[in-house]
């Protein structure tokens, strides 16, 4: 029997609004418990919700970025259930008429680009947070998160491996950050993911029961949990074992366990939210919101390949964020060698940003500074090795590279007459190396170059030193 895993991903993304979904409470992460609450989000009697216009617009923008149809009319619905983190005993969500439907996300796979269909994007509110494990037999409830605006982005089961799931999530995260609607932070829970997994028989009718996985707080956890479930389902299918439709929880020890079976699953009794009017989105509104759409990561990537002759790999790295791509373009436009700019950005620059935990936007290195550095190397004013030191100083101080070279006396010696005495001395000091070289051991040249670089404190132009040495020893 040939088997095929089918995975769908349900992603919750918190929108970057200043206030909550239905009230004016602030949305900052990490405030002291129950300090970002009001009568509306704590469901005091008589309080009425009013939707946040910005949240609606951000969801429509997301729908456009995911190639969705935007519904001309959509309604909010009540999802009814009882849980202590839910103040109203229902969550305001969307059910039958979501804002966006029928889109897709393009992911890169080993066999080329693949289109993952997006079934719907709807708008809803978040719940509060339970803090378990307090003193005694009580749970503590913090409602700061209650009422934060969330988008629920539901894919079709078009994903067939853990790798594809990760690629889809990374791409979705990139897009949401790119258009500025979500910070995509999985650890803080501003982007959450619940995969739905089952395995079917190819060309047959056998299949396992659908399972939903919860408690995944990182891309890594999603990857591991999906892999684990694919294996579990495949084994069950091959062994002909029966499976049950259920929700499973991912455990840190690397396995899943049953959380609840679908038979006892909630019956949410959705109905239209009578406290809220429908949303009507006309062409003019879609056009107005669409005008804010930046050139997307896929388009920029293609353009970088074409315009700057970058490799596909380099172009992907340069479009890891909108800021990164903008920095690259600004630097590449000022330098003659875009490829060198790309190398610096994914090499020393990325390393230093990473090591110091500095966001690109706060870095002291400017695109013009990086372009200047690339030009100094191309002109032979400094060696590649010196450039590394210069770049580190630029990163620390934000000074222009030419100034650093001057201040630290690091300019490269590319003057033949200045190098000749040093070369003479090296030849005189190392008769053995000279002998070896002349008898065919070309590697012996290294010892001579080493001494010359040492004598010049690394400032000799290595290519020129090599050239002059070979010339002299060949005489």
């Amino acid at each position, binding site marked *: 029997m040939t088997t095929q895993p089918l995975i769908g991903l349900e992603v919750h993304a918190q929108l970057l609004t200043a206030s909550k979904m239905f009230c004016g*409470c602030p949305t900052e992460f990490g405030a002291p418990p129950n300090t970002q*609450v009001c009568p509306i989000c704590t469901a005091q009697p008589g309080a009425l919700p009013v939707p946040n216009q910005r949240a609606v617009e951000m969801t429509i923008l997301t729908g456009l970025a995911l190639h969705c149809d935007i519904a001309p*009319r959509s309604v909010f619905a009540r999802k009814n259930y009882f849980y202590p983190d839910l103040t109203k005993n229902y969550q305001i969500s969307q059910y039958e008429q979501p804002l966006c439907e029928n889109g897709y996300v393009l992911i890169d796979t080993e066999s080329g680009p693949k289109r993952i269909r997006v079934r719907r994007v709807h708008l809803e509110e978040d719940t509060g947070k339970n803090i378990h494990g307090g003193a005694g037999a009580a*749970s*503590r409830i913090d409602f700061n998160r209650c009422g934060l605006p969330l988008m629920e982005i539901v894919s079709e089961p078009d994903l067939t491996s853990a790798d594809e799931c990760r690629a889809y999530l990374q791409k979705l995260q990139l897009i949401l950050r790119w258009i500025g609607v979500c910070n995509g932070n999985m650890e803080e829970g501003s982007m959450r993911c619940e995969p739905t997994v089952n395995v079917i028989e190819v060309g047959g009718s056998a299949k396992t029961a659908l399972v939903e996985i919860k408690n995944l707080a990182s891309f890594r956890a999603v990857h591991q949990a999906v892999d684990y479930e694919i294996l579990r389902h495949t084994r069950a299918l091959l062994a002909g074992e029966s499976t049950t439709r259920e929700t499973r929880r991912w455990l840190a020890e690397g396995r899943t366990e049953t959380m609840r079976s679908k038979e006892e699953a909630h019956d949410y009794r959705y109905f239209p939210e009578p406290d809220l009017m429908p949303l009507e989105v006309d062409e003019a509104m879609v056009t107005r919101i669409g005008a804010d759409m930046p050139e997307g990561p896929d388009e920029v990537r293609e353009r970088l390949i074409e315009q700057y002759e970058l490799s596909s790999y380099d172009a992907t790295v340069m479009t890891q964020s909108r800021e990164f791509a903008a920095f690259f373009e600004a630097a590449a436009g000022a330098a003659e060698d875009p490829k060198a700019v790309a190398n610096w950005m994914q090499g020393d620059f990325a390393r230093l940003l990473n090591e110091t935990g500095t966001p690109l936007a706060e870095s002291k290195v400017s695109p013009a500074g990086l372009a200047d550095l690339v030009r100094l190397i191309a002109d032979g004013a400094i060696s590649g090795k010196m450039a590394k030191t210069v770049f580190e100083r630029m990163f620390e101080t934000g000074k222009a590279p030419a100034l650093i070279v001057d201040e630290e006396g690091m300019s490269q010696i590319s003057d033949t007459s200045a190098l000749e005495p040093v070369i003479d001395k090296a030849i005189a000091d190392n008769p053995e190396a000279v002998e070896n070289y002349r008898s065919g051991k070309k590697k012996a040249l290294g010892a001579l170059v080493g001494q010359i670089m040492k004598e010049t404190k690394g400032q000799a132009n290595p290519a020129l030193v090599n050239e002059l040495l070979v010339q002299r020893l060949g005489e």
Partner: protein
Amino acid sequence: MIPVSVTRDDVAHVARLARLAMSEQELDQMHGYFEAILEHFAKLAAVDTEGVEPTSHPLARANVTREDCVTEPMDRTKLLANAPLADGECFLVPQIMEDE
């Protein structure tokens, strides 16, 4: 379409979803009430709705939204004052079982 009849099991199911404990006697009584209510609403079926769009709201308005502006949150002491149990920071509830 509104179902004209409701079973006693339906009533028990809804009671469980609403976290209401009901005795056998109460279930029987509720079952009777449910049937009477649904029978009453079934009269709506007599209305000719041919060509009428389903509505989600009695008012003919749409897009009632607000600007994304932050307002002053509520005082925490006031908020927690009405709670049966609180520790000055959080509401306290009986320990929540792992199963959601």
